[in-house]
């Protein structure tokens, strides 16, 4: 008996302890803020041009009170003021079609996407991620709304991702099924439908079930959106009463009947042109990953992850017609007054969270939306279509989620990439980049000619650093290299570089690296110099001179040729205006992916008389 009592007391204490552990802030959509209680997210952003979601306010200001936009009038004089430097302020972007898990919400925010509307993810993630979306607390992630588990048939699209989900068998189950989704916390209902029973080897729900599920959703005041990928399925979905289509289609140009039906029933469309571009094998996404505006603040690891994600669907034929038709359909729908919303469908192949929404905006502009209309498609209109509260606009009461741009997005939508700062709940978002720019100090020197003769048995450079090995192993690649002093270089003493290029990292490299300071923590300006010269000889082929600059994890590559004979090679700095010569952190001479073939993989060359003049 005593034992039993002890056990019960023990379990009670343990339970009490578990309840004492910290839990996320409880979701409270009616959160009230107290005016005048100044916090870090209360201030006035001055000297900016503001797009409030509907109209532009030239040379205006934005009042932020406890993480929400406040009225201009009143006590704004007493608030701290932040100079916006004549920037352009737009509402934080909303991606209306994502599949969100892992670090997606953090990554999205790094690109100014402050809200993601998820179209299907694991329930465990969804229930956790939505907890903080109505909070005005400081955060490093985008807000999250979700369909939770999608509605699909046994063996249908959505069941192939390796985790079990409930599926719907027949019309009779519609009410119960939709109620179960709502009980789980689905913010809206997403349905997968195809008009033919065989959907790329997957099954689909019937037309009758589709209609029943939409009816059951509407009976519970929930939005019902439908995944379709062709014209006939779109016709069926609209006939069945869908509130929105979460893709457009590229199999044919939209019929007048469908167009009329969509306009009359006010059906919105999230074209997700980004993912259609990927299916069509377009090079659209490749351009994003090399856009310096988008990538310069990223850490090496995140950039590598994103580049990997932006590779198009594997093994599909090139189909430019598919993308062209999809864009044309979007253009026609927009012309006929159908609401178009921006969604990327990240992280499907060819897309990545955050960055791909900027690509989608560009595609929507190509589909005939004006830049201001595109901004509304990624903000104001999305918040009208989905039950996501006051966001996507910057009028009083809305969440203080916004982006400050250095260039006017009205001129070209690509200017949404000129991000100066991102603000979430009124707090500035710090860059994910772990390199602390402040600790990198520029060194001013007289432009003396710098020479490494390598006459002594030493790898010392003209800076206080050693020539050393560099390879893609820092990016989890497998290439190797060895660097040593040799007495047999072009002019006697020099550097011998031997290495192997192996597959592993997408852009393999290995070779020798000259850091401009011992710890890579100093930059040097080369603007007073004209050229970098060096002598090289070795295994014939094209190699790369890499120039590393501050805040730019991706070095600029300048190709050069090595022959068996010693040659003097020169790089004229003014020939490469894309390099920030004012803040160089290092140079490297490397072999690259062109040597991936087994017979070329192994390479050796010598380097001598490195001169910066």
């Amino acid at each position, binding site marked *: 008996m005593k*034992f039993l009592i002890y056990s019960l007391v023990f379990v009670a204490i*343990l339970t009490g*302890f*578990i*309840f004492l*552990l*910290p*839990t*996320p802030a409880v979701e409270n959509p009616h959160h009230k803020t107290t005016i005048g209680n100044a916090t870090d997210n209360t201030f006035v952003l001055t000297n900016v041009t503001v797009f409030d979601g509907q109209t532009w306010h030239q040379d205006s200001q934005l009042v932020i009170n406890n993480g929400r936009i406040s009225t201009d009038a009143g006590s704004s004089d007493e608030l701290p003021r932040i100079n916006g430097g004549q920037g352009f302020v737009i509402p934080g972007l909303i991606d209306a079609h994502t599949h969100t*898990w*892992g*670090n997606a919400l*953090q*990554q999205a925010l790094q690109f100014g996407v402050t809200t993601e509307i998820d179209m299907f993810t*694991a329930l*465990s*993630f969804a229930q*956790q991620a939505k*907890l903080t979306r109505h909070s005005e607390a400081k955060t*490093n*992630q985008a807000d999250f709304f979700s369909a939770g588990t999608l509605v699909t048939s046994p063996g249908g699209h959505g069941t192939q*991702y*390796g*985790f*079990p989900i409930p599926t719907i068998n027949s019309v009779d189950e519609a009410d119960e099924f939709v109620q179960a989704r709502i009980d789980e916390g689905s913010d809206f209902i997403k349905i997968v439908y195809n008009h033919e029973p065989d959907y790329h080897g997957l099954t689909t729900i019937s037309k009758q079930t589709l209609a029943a599920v939409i009816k059951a959703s509407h009976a519970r005041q929930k939005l019902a959106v439908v995944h379709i990928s062709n014209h006939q399925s779109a016709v069926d979905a609209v006939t069945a009463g869908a509130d929105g289509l979460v893709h457009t289609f590229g199999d044919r140009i939209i019929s007048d009947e469908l167009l009329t039906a969509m306009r009359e029933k006010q059906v919105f469309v999230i074209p997700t042109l980004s993912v259609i571009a990927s299916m069509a094998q377009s090079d659209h996404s490749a351009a994003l990953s090399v856009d310096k505006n988008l990538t310069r603040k990223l850490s090496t690891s995140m950039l590598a992850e994103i580049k990997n994600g932006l590779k198009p669907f594997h093994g599909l034929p090139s189909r430019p017609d598919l993308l062209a038709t999809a864009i044309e359909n979007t253009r026609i729908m927009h012309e006929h007054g159908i609401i178009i919303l921006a969604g990327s469908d990240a992280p499907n192949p060819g897309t990545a969270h955050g960055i791909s929404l900027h690509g989608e905006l560009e595609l929507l502009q190509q589909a005939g939306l004006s830049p201001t209309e595109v901004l509304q498609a990624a903000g104001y209109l999305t918040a009208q279509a989905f039950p996501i509260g006051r966001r996507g606009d910057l009028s009083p009461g809305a969440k203080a989620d916004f982006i400050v741009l250095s260039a006017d997005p009205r001129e070209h939508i690509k200017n949404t990439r000129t991000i100066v700062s991102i603000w979430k709940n009124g707090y500035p978002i710090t860059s*994910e980049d*772990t390199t602390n720019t402040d600790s990198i100090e520029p060194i001013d020197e007289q432009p003396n000619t710098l020479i490494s003769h390598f006459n002594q048995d030493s790898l010392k450079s003209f800076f206080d650093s050693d020539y050393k090995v560099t390879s893609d192993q820092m990016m*989890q690649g497998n290439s190797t290299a060895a660097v040593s002093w040799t007495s047999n270089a072009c002019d006697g003493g020099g550097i011998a570089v031997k290495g192997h290029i192996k597959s592993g990292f997408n852009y393999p490299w290995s070779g020798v690296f000259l850091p401009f300071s011992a710890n890579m923590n100093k930059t040097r300006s080369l603007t007073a110099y004209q050229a970098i010269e060096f002598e090289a000889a070795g295994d014939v082929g094209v190699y790369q001179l890499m120039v590393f600059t501050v805040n730019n994890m991706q070095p600029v590559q300048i190709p050069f040729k090595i022959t068996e004979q010693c040659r003097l090679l020169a790089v004229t700095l003014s020939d490469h205006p894309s390099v920030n010569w004012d803040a160089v952190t290092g140079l490297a001479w490397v072999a690259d992916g062109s040597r991936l073939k087994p017979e070329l993989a192994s390479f050796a060359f010598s380097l001598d008389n490195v001169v910066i003049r």
Partner: protein
Amino acid sequence: MNTSANWQRSLNIYYLEAKTEFLKAFRMPAFTIPSLLFPLMFYVFFALIFNRQGMNGQMPAYMIATYGVFGIIGPALFGFGVGVAIEKDQGWLAVKQCSPMPISAYFMARILTAMQFALLIILSLFITGALFGDVVLTTGQWAATLLVLLIGTLPFCALGLWLGLALKGQSAPAVVNLIYLPMSFLSGLWIPIELFSSVLQSFAWLLPPFHLAQLVLKIQGLDLGHPWFIHAGILTAMSLLFLLLARRSFKRISEAK
């Protein structure tokens, strides 16, 4: 009429054996201190000091799961692997077999001791993570993490039992260490498994801690995304295999006498 008395008496045997076993283990500093302190120390080093911002600041929460797994394996593997091996060599196991006490009480006592140590380790990780790592989970997630980790000691008790019966007392500590540390590392308990090469990731499927870690990480949605029943199924199958191997060793010992 006296079945209830019988039942109480036999429960008392189990209770006394468990209590003495726990006291014995607890009074061995060589067992207690590393078991309790190592997981906590590694957690402080790798999740709080060196890698705090890793995985977008989720590292402290992620590593509650993985060092939790690392922590609970220790007492299970050492309590059984080393403890049973030494007591077997000293003849103490034989004495226990001869005594009127059911032999299951001996094993039950060790399982409960491993779980009690596991509980202490988990709670200390929870407190450290909550106070110093800003780890925030729902009450359900905290409770589920605790429960899955406690039940998760069982496969390692089975593995330890087999090792304890198969190994000589002198060699047991070395061999158990040789299995414990590399197995933990290769299962992604120290460094997130996502950072491993694909070959190493595939290899981890052969290791029981990998599956337990995936189950615990699933509670936070930080796992690799395989269904939970696959991991649970593999763990159950592995436990049965270890028990089968342990039975074979046990028979061999009994017949040798």
